[in-house]
């Protein structure tokens, strides 16, 4: 059951991620990205990160992607213009990327012994209680710094998006 769920949502995530890259219209890319984030939320649940799965759906698939779709519609962004690339880029780009990915996968398989496996319920420390306890004890300084960062981001976004007064 675990392996079935993992494979199902991993395949959905990879197909949607490929769709993000190959679609020419930004709205199609955005919807595919929501698919990636949704299936990643299920994988987080399988890894025992229930709080982060909820946060993934609410913050990423909810807030951030709504912002993206809103901006795409505001700018009326159409399909991206085709552009001729040099022959070397066309011939080398994808094989080099596949080579990078293959090397990465090879080293991951080498470094992590097959004995370590993931099963649902194997780690129950990802509840909202556990995350909150750690967040407000050992990680309280990063938490406060993050709140400052968000304040700066709010002010920056307002300053950037305001209408000129003159």
């Amino acid at each position, binding site marked *: *059951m*675990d*392996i079935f769920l*993992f494979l199902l949502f*991993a395949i959905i*995530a*990879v197909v949607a*991620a490929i769709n*993000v*890259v190959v679609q020419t219209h*930004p709205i199609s*890319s955005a919807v595919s*990205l929501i698919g*990636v984030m949704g299936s*990643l939320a299920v*994988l987080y649940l399988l*890894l025992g*990160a229930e*709080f*982060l799965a909820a*946060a*993934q759906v609410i*913050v*990423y698939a909810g807030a*951030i992607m709504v912002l*993206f779709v809103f*901006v*795409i519609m505001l*700018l009326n*962004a159409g399909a*991206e213009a085709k*552009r001729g690339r040099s022959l070397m880029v066309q011939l080398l780009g994808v094989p080099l*990327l596949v080579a990078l*990915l293959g090397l*990465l*996968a090879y080293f*991951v*398989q080498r470094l*992590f012994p*097959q004995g*370590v*496996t*993931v099963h649902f319920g194997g*780690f129950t*420390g990802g509840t909202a209680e*556990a*995350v909150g306890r*750690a*967040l407000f004890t050992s*990680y309280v300084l*990063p938490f406060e710094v*993050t709140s400052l*960062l*968000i304040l*700066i*981001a709010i002010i*920056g*976004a307002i300053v*950037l*998006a305001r209408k000129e007064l003159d």
Partner: protein
Amino acid sequence: MTEVPISWYLTLSAILFALGVAGFLFRRSIITVFMSIELMLNAVNLSFITFSYQFKQVNGHLFAFFVMVVAAAEAAVGLAIILNIFKNRATLNIDEIDSMKN
């Protein structure tokens, strides 16, 4: 109940990250480039949570949480910048936004 090797999760994370890099490098629309960055951040989050499972500690979850918060702030500011660029130049193609080059 069959169990999933932990390396599969990390390989999935690597695949998603590579696709994010591909989108970042190949695409010409500034919004899609931005979405590729979000894809890479998600891939890294999956790695964090997988390692958190492996070591049976909650710390990885907190790092993923901070990445999420920073991504939200980054999306707000980045999209405001994109709005400004579109207002000033009326284009979303990153090849045409090259005034710092000359």
